[in-house]
């Protein structure tokens, strides 16, 4: 019974405080939309590049035409020399220079290998990747054609095909077929928002009670005498709220922005409940350190990016130093981001993410115990004061 009373109290507290509503209701609803909107163009197309064609041969023009025809790159200008081309790089009118040497066609007729220079402004890996893959794909394609037409001399069309590529290959990009940014950024961001908004919301609500109750995090009421009930009652409120947010993220955001959606609802719910609980309990433990309600913003907001990098999605987990990896196991986000990404984006089942689920389960138990201990201490303080 007490649990329900505490649950109701928490609901009352939160919905009478615009500050907390902002974090636990508006933020998880609005932020995913903003981020999805930032990243949904998914890919960069037509990166402007400049060409310097010293060869001026039909072969070099053919090469440039083909590069221009790729979706990733657009040849915006042909310059007469490198200095001129470089000034375009300086002005950021182009991000790469394709330089074709004057011996390009000559070497080719002599049967020698010839090179095309690609000079890239390294301000963004995306520009580099676009320019480099466009050039290398065109060169592979032209090489095949040259090889067959000039040297191997097939007799039938089928033979020409076989000679061009005796072993054919296909690349299949699984789970993110367009190679887009949103499909890889948004799912982890959603779960990160959940954890951070819970930390902020719980921190603020703790700070609020501290400010209201003269430095104590629990009100002087006979309902608040059992730490397990307090922790569970509060958690129950956030859990119910975040299941709604979870379904919103899983269904609305994913559908609205056309993100990969391979997971099953049941797997998702099975993951979400322990994840939100672990975040709640850790939030309670961390907010032990918070004395004023606004302080939690100072501490929790900047943490999101280091936590995001720790989880091994954008920076591959295999390249993360061991020390940081073990440290990352302290936070639910490490497991949560990976598990959610794999459930929703890659269609993994709960058993496929068993490692992550075990991690979350251990965290839930440990942080629950810690939160109970903290509240026990607080209850003792209140009792002492009452006495």
């Amino acid at each position, binding site marked *: 019974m007490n649990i329900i009373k505490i649950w109701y109290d928490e609901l009352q507290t939160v919905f009478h405080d615009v500050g907390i509503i902002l974090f636990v209701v508006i933020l998880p609803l609005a932020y995913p939309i903003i981020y999805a909107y930032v990243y949904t163009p998914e890919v960069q197309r037509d990166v402007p590049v400049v060409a310097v064609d010293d060869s001026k041969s039909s072969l070099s023009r053919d090469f440039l035409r083909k590069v221009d025809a790729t979706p990733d790159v657009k040849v915006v200008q042909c310059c007469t020399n490198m200095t001129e081309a470089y000034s375009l790089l300086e002005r950021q009118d182009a991000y790469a220079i394709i330089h074709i040497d004057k011996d390009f066609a000559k070497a080719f007729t002599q*049967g020698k290998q010839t090179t095309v220079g*690609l000079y890239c402004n390294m301000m*963004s*890996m995306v520009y580099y990747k676009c320019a480099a893959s466009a050039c290398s794909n065109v060169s592979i394609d032209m*090489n095949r054609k040259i090889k067959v037409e000039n040297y191997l001399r097939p007799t039938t069309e089928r033979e020409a095909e076989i000679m061009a590529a*005796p*072993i054919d290959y296909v690349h299949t*990009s699984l789970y993110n077929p367009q190679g887009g940014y949103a499909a890889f950024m948004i799912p982890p961001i959603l779960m990160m928002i959940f954890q951070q908004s819970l930390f902020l919301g719980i921190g603020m609500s703790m700070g609020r009670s501290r400010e209201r109750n003269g430095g104590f995090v629990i009100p002087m009421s006979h309902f608040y005498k059992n730490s397990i009930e307090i922790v569970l009652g509060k958690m129950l409120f956030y859990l119910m709220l975040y299941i709604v947010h979870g379904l919103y993220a899983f269904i609305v955001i994913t559908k609205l922005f056309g993100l990969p959606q391979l997971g099953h609802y049941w797997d998702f719910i099975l993951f979400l409940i322990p994840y939100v609980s672990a975040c709640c309990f850790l939030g309670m433990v961390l907010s032990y350190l918070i004395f004023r309600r606004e302080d939690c913003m100072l501490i929790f907001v900047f943490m999101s*990016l280091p936590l995001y990098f720790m989880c091994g999605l954008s920076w591959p987990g295999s390249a993360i130093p061991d020390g940081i990896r073990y440290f990352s196991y302290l936070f639910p986000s490490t497991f949560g981001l990976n598990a959610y990404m794999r459930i929703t984006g890659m269609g993994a089942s709960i058993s496929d993410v068993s490692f992550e689920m075990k991690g979350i389960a251990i965290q839930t138990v440990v942080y629950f115990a810690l939160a109970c201990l903290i509240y026990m201490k607080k209850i003792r303080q209140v009792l002492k004061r009452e006495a």
Partner: protein
Amino acid sequence: MKEVFLRIWRIGLREIEIFSHRPMYLFVIIIAPLFCLIYFTQIMRSGIPTKMPCGVVDEDNTSTTRSIVRILGAMQNTDIVAHYGSFSEARKAMQKGDIYAFFYIPRNTTDRALASRRPEISFYTADTYYAAGSLLMKDLQTTSELAGLAITRASLTAKGVSPSLMMGILQPITIETHPLNNPTLNYSVYLNNIVVPGLFFLIIMLFTAYTIGYEWKMGTQKELFEMAGESSTIALAGKLWPQTLLYCLIMILIDVYFYKFLDFPLNVSLIRIICAGLLCVFASQALAVFFFGIFLTLRMGMSACSLFGVLQISVSGFTFPLTAMKPVFQYLAWISPLRHYYMLYVNQALNGFKLVYAWPSIVALLVICLLPLTVLSRIAHAFKYVDYKP
């Protein structure tokens, strides 16, 4: 004039007094940015992720296919961690997160290749892991291309083509890539130069709004306003100078650590990039004052700062390019100190271009620094009449 400086000085001393009672302040201003600096440079200390887990499904299992797999295993980015018996096993491993990619060689590949029946091999990358997927893709594509070329080479040798002519036939056109000023594709250089200042600017914005709003929370805003002789300019200047000094020191420390200690590419003098950093520090503070001036409450001021500060890390466009984003973000980027820092860093430190090409960013930063002027009277009004609302 002397009196003005005296007031600013006294308010500053009062601020330092407040600081000394709150260890959390020092944690936020000093420890947090330095933690980010060490943390991010440590996590990416290898520069580029190499030897990422990759699987192989070799249903053919002949000496030819094994040698293809060995070639793949020798590649820089690839670490073959497992051989799977079937496609679905490999896919399952991918869903479990054991591997980022796998190479699939179907049965009879060698037979078909030798009989000129053009077998097809394939590779699969999990592109939900963007960096890992695309780095592995490069290796897998090279290996697949080489597999075909090996057969062409064998048939050319049989026809009596000399090895010296071979490369001109197999690969007439090669691409020589020159990643300017970051030849090793060092991700630490690429990301940390923006991520660390980005988080630092976020902390600056939050903390500036916090310290100003804190006066209202403690109910000391009227006392401060009196000390400032009823001038919001003096009140803010006095309040902000001690932390500004700290910010400047930390910004210099970040730059020295990057360019002198870690030897990140620096093609201008250190002073220039430090100046760019400091200008962005001031712009971040100004933006925080501006946001506070619009909302006039601690909570909303800080919320606006955190929203903007976090968002500008994406909108600055150093990962996903701003040029591909929707126009609304391209306009928003104009008031983002981080975006301009990124432009100045690319223009100056990374590439050593002429400064004249970066003038729009400098002008924009100076304009951002002037933004608080528009809200000074609002803040003055708030000092007199507005009370703290939780």
